[in-house]
Structure formats: C-alpha cells, structure tokens
C-alpha cells in the first residue's frame, strides 16, 4: 500500500480548471519527480495535497488517513513536510528559531508552561534546542545558528529551509523547486543534500523541478504535467525524451546546465 495515495484529485479556481483528475501513488522511500512548464499547476498540486487549498473533488490518503479537509498545519504535523519555491523564511527570526519552530506541534508544555516558565518547559525547550543543533550540524549551518536567516547567503538559506522541514520528522517530503536560482555548483551540492537526507531518514520525496538534470539525478519515477493534467508518467529518461513532453517544453526558457 502506497504511503501517499492521491486519486482523481481536481481543483478549479473560479471556473478555471487548474488540476484535473490527478493521481499519484508514492511508496515509502521512493523519489518521484513532477516536471512541467510554468503554470502547469505543479505548485497547486502541492498546495492541494498539503491542505493549503481544498480540492474540489478527489481524495488524498496518507498512511491510510484521508487528508482532504485537513488544514496545512495538521497535515504537516502528521508527517507531510513541504518546502516552498520562494522559501518563505521568517525575516526577523534566527536560524535556530526557524528549526525549533518546526517542533511546534510536538511541544507538550502547554500554555501555562509558556506563560510561567515551568521546569517542564525549560527541559523541553532545551531538548528541542539540542535536536535543532543536531539538524543544523547535519546541514552545516550550525555556525550561524544565532544569525538572522535573512543575512545568510542563498545556498545556506535553502539548507536552513530544508532542515526546517526535516525536523518535523516527516515521512514524506515535498520539495518545490529546491534548486531554483542556484549556480551549477550550488545545485550539485543541493542534490547531494537531498540524497543524504533521503538515505538518512528513509524519506519518500515528491519533488517539483524545472531542471531536468536534478530529476535525472534523483528520481526513479517522473510525472510530466501540462495544463493541470499528467501527460506522461514513467521512468525518468523515458518521460524526458517523450515527444509530447519535448513539445510542451518548446517555447519555454529552459535553463539546462
């Protein structure tokens, strides 16, 4: 039984069909890629799966549970972490605070603990800090733990974002264009980071990418999306060389390194 199972999911924005009859099944430990030209609805699919939008019809099952109707924070707490194309970091918060924040749903000291600073809260906060530092070390950003995240170089920001999503301890990680705007070197480093995270946490990863090289390096399985519909699905190189996909990409400014 697949870990994440989407069946016949459709969505329209005020009459405009953004996603239609979308299907996905993602097994534990599998990396699936989602490619397609701009405006194909890739990010919308992420938003629908994670509960930021509610699909007009269809079902999303995760670990045997129905996700439709659940909110973004609930799906995240269940183990469905995501990143954003534009990163969405918090500009007034430090790196360490970013990582700690993702443990929000696992905090158990309650409101009174927060107000009164009970020993339980202190213990728990200390534990969360330790855990966060571990993750920061893993992503080689522990040296800048106390810096505001907006002051970091771009590549580090991306890594912080990745660490932030992973500290949720998700079973599925949804990555929305993790290498957008990166130089080739940065991109290669990011591929390594993703690969390492995948091995270490035995994650299932669902990845939106614009760069076919990243998809080729990482994904066993690829879907090509055009106008909200899956055009081709299959092995990475099969999909990329499929005439329909090539056709859809024509006219797109593809940045291929």
């Amino acid at each position: 039984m697949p870990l994440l199972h989407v069946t016949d999911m459709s969505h329209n924005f005020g009459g405009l069909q953004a996603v239609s009859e979308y299907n996905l099944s993602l097994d534990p430990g599998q990396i699936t890629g989602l490619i397609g030209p701009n405006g194909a609805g890739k990010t919308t699919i992420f938003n629908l799966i994670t509960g930021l939008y509610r699909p007009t019809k269809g079902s999303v099952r995760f670990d045997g549970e129905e996700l439709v109707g659940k909110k973004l924070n609930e799906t995240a707490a269940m183990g469905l972490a995501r990143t954003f194309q534009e990163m969405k970091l918090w500009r007034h918060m430090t790196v360490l605070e970013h990582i700690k924040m993702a443990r929000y749903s696992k905090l158990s000291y309650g409101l009174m603990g927060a107000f009164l600073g009970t020993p339980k809260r202190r213990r728990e906060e200390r534990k969360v800090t330790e855990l966060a530092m571990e993750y920061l070390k893993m992503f080689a950003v522990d040296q800048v733990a106390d810096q505001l995240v907006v002051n970091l170089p771009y590549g580090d920001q991306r890594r912080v974002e990745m660490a932030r999503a992973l500290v949720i301890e998700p079973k599925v990680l949804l990555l929305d264009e993790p290498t957008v705007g990166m130089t080739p070197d940065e991109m290669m480093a990011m591929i390594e980071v993703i690969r390492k995270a995948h091995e270490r946490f035995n994650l299932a990863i669902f990845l939106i990418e614009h760069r076919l090289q990243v998809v080729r390096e990482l994904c066993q399985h690829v879907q090509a999306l055009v106008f909200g519909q899956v055009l081709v699905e299959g092995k990475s190189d099969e999909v990329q060389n499929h005439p329909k996909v090539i056709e859809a990409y024509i006219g797109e400014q593809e940045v291929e390194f």
Partner: protein
Amino acid sequence: MDEATAPKKIGGLFYRLDQFFKPVPLLGYLLGVLVCVLWEQMAGEQLSAFLGLPKMPVLFGLLTIFKVVAGVINLLIKGDAFNWATLVHVPTALVYLTVIYLIPISLVARASVKPANALARYLQGFPLIITALVQLGLMYAVLHIWADMSDYRLITLKLTLIAVLFTLSLNIINGYMGEFSCSHPGFMAIGAYMSSLFTVGLFTSDKVLGDAVFTFSAAYLSFPLALIFGGMMAALGALIVAIPSFKTRGDYLAIISLAFLFIVKSFFENMQVLGGSRGIAGQPDWATLPVIFITMAFGIWTINNFVTSTMGKALNAVRDDETAAEAMTVNTRKTKMVAFLFGAFWAGVAGGMLAHVLRYVNPAMFSVQKLAEVLAMVYFGGLNSVYGSIVGAVSISLLGEALRPLEILKWIVIPLLLILVMIYRPTGLIAFKEFDVRQVFGPKEVD
C-alpha cells in the same frame, strides 16, 4: 574641516561613555540609584534651598526647566509677564540634577564594578528566581524611597508602571504578532470597570452599586482576585473581537477592534447600572505601590516567558509568513487567539489597577485619545521588544509629565517627536531585541 570632525567627536564621546559604563551590571546601577535617592532624601531640600530653587524638584528638575521654557514661550506668544529672575532656575535645576543624580550614579556604578559583578556572579549560583527577586527588591526599594518624597511622584510612578504593563500587553499584538489592534483601551476599560465592580460592589458602600456585601478588615487581600477578574473579563471581551477577526487573514483586526472600542465605550456610557457617563468612583485605595510593582513585574515576566518560548515565537512566524508557519505545524489560529486574549488579559489587569489608583473610572477615559497614547508608547519604544515597551512607556509618560508646563504645546512636541522617530526608525527605538532575564540580572563580563 571643523564640520567634518565635529560629529566624530560626539561619536567619540558616546563611545567613551559607552566603554566607561560597559562593565557595570544592573546591580551596580541599582546601587548607584539607591545612593542617589538616599542622598536626595538627606540633602535634596537643603541643596534646592541653597540653589535658590522654589522647592525641591520633583521630576529630576525637568519640570522646573520646562516651567521656565513655558514662561518664555508665553512671553513671546501672548506677551504674558515673565519673571526674568526665574531664568536662573534652568542652570540651577541642571546643577541639582547633576549633583543629586548624575554624579553619584556614575561614581557609585563605576566604582562598584568589581563588588557588584562579584555579587551578581555569586547570585548567579542560585536559581534565577532568587537573583531576580533580590534585584527586583532593590529596585523596589529605590522606587519606594524616590516616590516617598512627594505625592506627585507617587502617583506619577504608579501611572508609569501601569503604562509599562499596558504598553507591553499591546506590543504582544502589534509587535510580536504584527497585527494592528485598536481595541486595547476597550480591554482596559473592561478591566477597570469589572474590577471596580468587584471591589466597590462587594466591599464598599456606594451610591451607584449599593451597600457593601462583605465587611471585613482584610478585604484588601481580595484585590488580586479583583484584578484577575477584570483581566478575565477583558479576555472574554477580546474573544468577541478574536473569533471573527482571525477567521480570515489581512488587516481585518484593525477595523473590528476599532468598532469594538466604540462599542465598549458606548456600552459603558449607557449602562446606568454602572454609573453611565459618570462612571464609578470611590474605589478602595488598594492599588499601593508594592501591589502595582509586583503585578507589573509578574506581568512582564509572564509576557517575556511567553514570547521567548517556541510557542510564543510562533507569533513571529505568523507575522513574518503565515503560510510557512502553518506548513511548519504551527496552529496559527490558536496562536493568534491565545496571544490576543493574553494581551487583553494584561490590559484588563492594567485597567483594574488604573481604576484603583485614580479611584474613579468613567467611559471618557478610554477614548481614541487613549488609543493614540498607547500606540505612541508602543511604536516609540520599539516593536517586538520588552525593552522597547519599558522605554516607550516610561519616556512618553515622563515626557508627558515634564512637558506639562507647556500645556497644550505638549501635544505638538510629543507627536512631532514620534513622527521623527517613525521617519528615522520606523519600528521604534529598541525594536526586535530579546529580553534575556539571565543576562539582565547577571554580571557583565568584559575582557
């Protein structure tokens, strides 16, 4: 050439001053101020008589100075008679300020660096609560001695401490959470009325609320209950604003809360049971300085605890990017509700204390002007910062008092100052600075 070097010189002076006072811990300053107030108690009267000041300056000589300034302005504008001899009060008040406050505090603070740091380090060995209590006790002693010297000082100090709590409670919402709430005076009103209802209704005989229900001598012990009751009711009122406001995103709260402020004011104006527009008077004199000081300190402590916890940091996450906060498992609606109600609670407590300091409460106290005042304090001091709220509330309160001789002109000077602050530091003087209690009370390590 001269112009180019002049600012540098000033910078150098500030730098040197900064270096000079850098190793002084809070304890050192407290000792310094303690010496000051004791010294003023001993020699203040004699010194002011010697300097030819009309009476002992109550507000660091600032009031005296601005009285002279106001005299000059009235002479220039209206041609009022001005006693030129009073002009000498400006330098003498400055001398007073220097001799009584500045010199002793600098000397003692600097001279006590070693013992104060040693003591602070020694105290650090104990649990944080002990360190904090010792230093807060010292702080209270200083304020008590200072305020003991005149009734004016006492009431000014009480109102300032209340303003600190009130400002900080609004900072939770406008600063930490990044929403724009306009209903805070309304919450204060609810707190003031409800705690008055509690004390006046139960323990005193009053024209509006009838005879006392209970009469026993230790009734003042119930004052904390009255404050909590006031705060709870304010939080309940906040629920009316919070439920519709946090359903959607956007600057929706600003509007709903404004309408709520008008509703609350109008409600109390029309409740004849609560005295209508005349309000309730004759509150028992229970809001003494220690009570207010303890309540304020406790309030600051809980608020600071909240905003430094991961749960409270969620407010910042919601402010900076709500979608990201949600994607990181934060329950944004709950976070916002909790913070809003928590802020309203402390605003209500502040209102309860205000009613019992002034010993009256009426709807006119909680108007849009009050809103402008508290917003001024929050934004002047700095958003997202406990320091900022303390600085904002204290400086606007003190400025308001010191500029009192200028009468109506005060309301030109203070807004102008605030506009300048907004232009040059749009988030306020000390924004986004974390208030680390351990660091504040601890020793200063300088190599």
